[in-house]
């Protein structure tokens, strides 16, 4: 992710408003990604390290769908923003299908194996998917055709990018969906599976299907956050390359801080990390010589380490019950 120069607002209040929006938007993106980690973790008790690669693949899919294939623009011919939104949906669905396929062939055979094994498999997946998508898009910069581009609007003297509003809105919609989802039949089944796989199987829950739902939804949400993270204020406005995948590794502190198995924790953790990173970047910029160039990108990890010293299972995480 490239570090863009900060547009300086006129006075302290405007600077604060501007920074606040930036923090909220970045926090929303982290929260979205954290939610995708949480979904997978709730079902499979595994951190899916391949989520970054999924986000990358989702961005790549959007570029192909919207720019190369002009789906659904070639049939609809309607307004550009509607086509773009539909293309985003298509890309997220495609990533969901990718998640389904990956889950079916690599994760399903591991039901009942140690969590360590599954996590390692996802690391392997991360390498494969990332290399395929990075090397396949490497020298041909792809654009995403974001309708609002880098446009901003003003609140008083503060400049706010439309991307911030879009990211916050996207996160809000997704989180409302997630909270509703955990109340549905499938969501309850997922919570039961997370609690105890064998007991869930004995209750007649199809654990395989729960895995599939979690992976598909996780991949789709990761794709959404990947797409938003590649937009103009954060990314190169095109498909992010290898550095873009590190964005996802900065979201991992958000998950751990909030607790690996809590959707609320994902939101809170994501916002804390996002605000911490942006506010540190804004208000400690005078000490950049001391802290080193790009110090704000390390802030999430520092916050995570401090948080884990206080609460080893995250703010909203369930303390693991350990038996001999």
């Amino acid at each position, binding site marked *: 992710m490239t570090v863009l120069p900060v547009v300086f607002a006129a006075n302290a209040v405007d600077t604060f408003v501007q920074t606040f929006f930036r923090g909220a938007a970045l926090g929303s993106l982290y929260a979205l990604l954290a939610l995708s980690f949480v979904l997978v973790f709730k079902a499979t008790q*595994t*951190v899916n390290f391949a989520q970054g690669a999924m986000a990358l693949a989702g961005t790549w899919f959007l570029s192909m769908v919207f720019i190369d294939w002009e789906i659904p623009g070639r049939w609809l011919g309607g307004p550009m923003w509607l086509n773009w939104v539909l293309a985003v949906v298509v890309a997220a669905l495609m990533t969901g299908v990718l998640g389904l396929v990956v889950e079916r062939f*690599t994760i399903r*055979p*591991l039901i009942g*194996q140690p*969590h*360590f*094994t599954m*996590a*390692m*498999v996802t*690391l*392997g*997946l*991360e*390498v*494969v998917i990332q*290399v*395929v998508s990075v*090397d*396949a*898009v*490497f*020298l*041909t910069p792809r654009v995403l055709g974001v309708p609002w581009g880098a446009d901003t609007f003003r609140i008083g003297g503060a400049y706010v990018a439309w991307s911030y509003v879009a990211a916050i809105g996207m996160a809000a919609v997704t989180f409302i969906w997630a909270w509703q989802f955990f109340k549905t039949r499938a969501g309850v089944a997922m919570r039961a599976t997370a609690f105890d796989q064998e007991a869930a199987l004995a209750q007649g829950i199809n654990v395989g299907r729960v895995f599939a739902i979690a992976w598909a939804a996780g991949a789709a949400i990761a794709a959404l956050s990947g797409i938003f993270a590649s937009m103009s204020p954060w990314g190169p406005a095109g498909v992010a390359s290898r550095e873009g995948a*590190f964005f996802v*590794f*900065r979201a*991992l*502190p958000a*998950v*751990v801080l909030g607790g*690996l198995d809590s959707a609320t924790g994902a939101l809170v953790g994501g916002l804390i990390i996002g605000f911490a990173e942006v506010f540190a970047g804004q208000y400690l910029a005078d000490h950049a010589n001391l*802290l*080193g*160039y*790009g*110090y704000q*990108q*390390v802030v999430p*990890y*520092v916050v*995570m*380490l401090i948080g*884990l*010293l206080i609460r*080893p*299972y995250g703010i909203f995480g369930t303390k*693991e019950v*350990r*038996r*001999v």
Partner: protein
Amino acid sequence: MRGRPNLYTSYEAESQLFPTTTHKVALGLGLLVLVLMPFDLPVINQLPFVRFLGDSIWLRLVNKMLIFTIGALGLHLLSGLAGQLSLGHAFFGGVGASTAVLMGGKASANLWGWGLPMWVWLPAAGMVAALIGIAIAPTAVRVRGLYLGIVTLGLVFIGLHLSRMFPEIAGPGDLGRKWPRMELRLWKEEEPFLDFSRDGHWLWFDASKHQKTYFFLLVIVVLMAWWVANLGRTRTGRALAAIRDRDIAAEIMGVHEYRYKTTAFALSSFYAGVSGALFASFVGQVPPEQWSLRASVTFLAALLIGGMGRVSGVFMGSFFVIMSTRFVEEVVDWAKHQAEADGLFSGFFDFFISRGTGDGGLISVAETAMGYPLPASALDEIIYGVLIIVFLLFEPLGLSGIWMKVRNYWKGWPFSY
């Protein structure tokens, strides 16, 4: 007991590293081959798989593998023996490399270096890494499982940032700086009395720098591997294995979990530090990005492909991970020649090989190979990603597991057990 190889009459006999005569003979022969390997000797160069090693390109890869093995042995202590998932192993390698260059490097206007000899900076690289391992242990011991993996992942990124903060140590940006050579001096005098990094004479032999480095590394690796294998038989090793198998049960039995996990972190960091220092010194100039997540994953991949929890597996996995790069290149090259040769199967190979724009295929062999037909280098990364998955799915015990199956089959042959 003659003829009863699996009958042990004492605990000492059971816990021997090389219990049978066959083991001892195999070890002796193996060491003999390892010593003779780098020479272009008339007998050795007839042996399959070994003869190419007189070649300096291959010997260079073998040296790289030996250095990598030291780091993998460290991760074996932490993940294989003590069962702690660590994604931050590369960070400790970076710590070791930085210590080495700070102590042994040459100072200049914008670089720090004390110019100390290798017998100071090599152990110091390990010690400093071990101390940092002990320093992070309070956080690392509190969290377990995947939380630990993410915490150690954070270390990698903090380490990368620190290397950017101190370009005086790690060297500027993408370039890095010159690392001290592998050579032994008494103190800061001009001429080293033993030099492993330049061509020259040893006794009455002409020894190339790769051959010299090879012998130096071989001694270090054999000592360190022997020490790791031995550790598994001691009280500490048994305590670590108990923590791996069930940590609460281990605590109830009186294993001090905090102390032993800290020990595991310190020892594993020591190995990583030594490995990092040697690697940087071997390559000569290393950018800080070397110590990234990908390097950590490579260490884990070596452990998993070789087989978790076995020292022999560490060697097999390291060999596989390092050699696969070259192996893939050779295979692609061979397939390219087959495709161009107009032989019986050239159409089959042409299907896979793309020779530039316009020619379809999966793998590109063109000079500027980027973009859709994947270059051979990308293919190599994909292959080890796939191999991690395949081994975990189908052979969780890794290469050493396959070897054990083969051995057990022939032990009982012609009977099934």
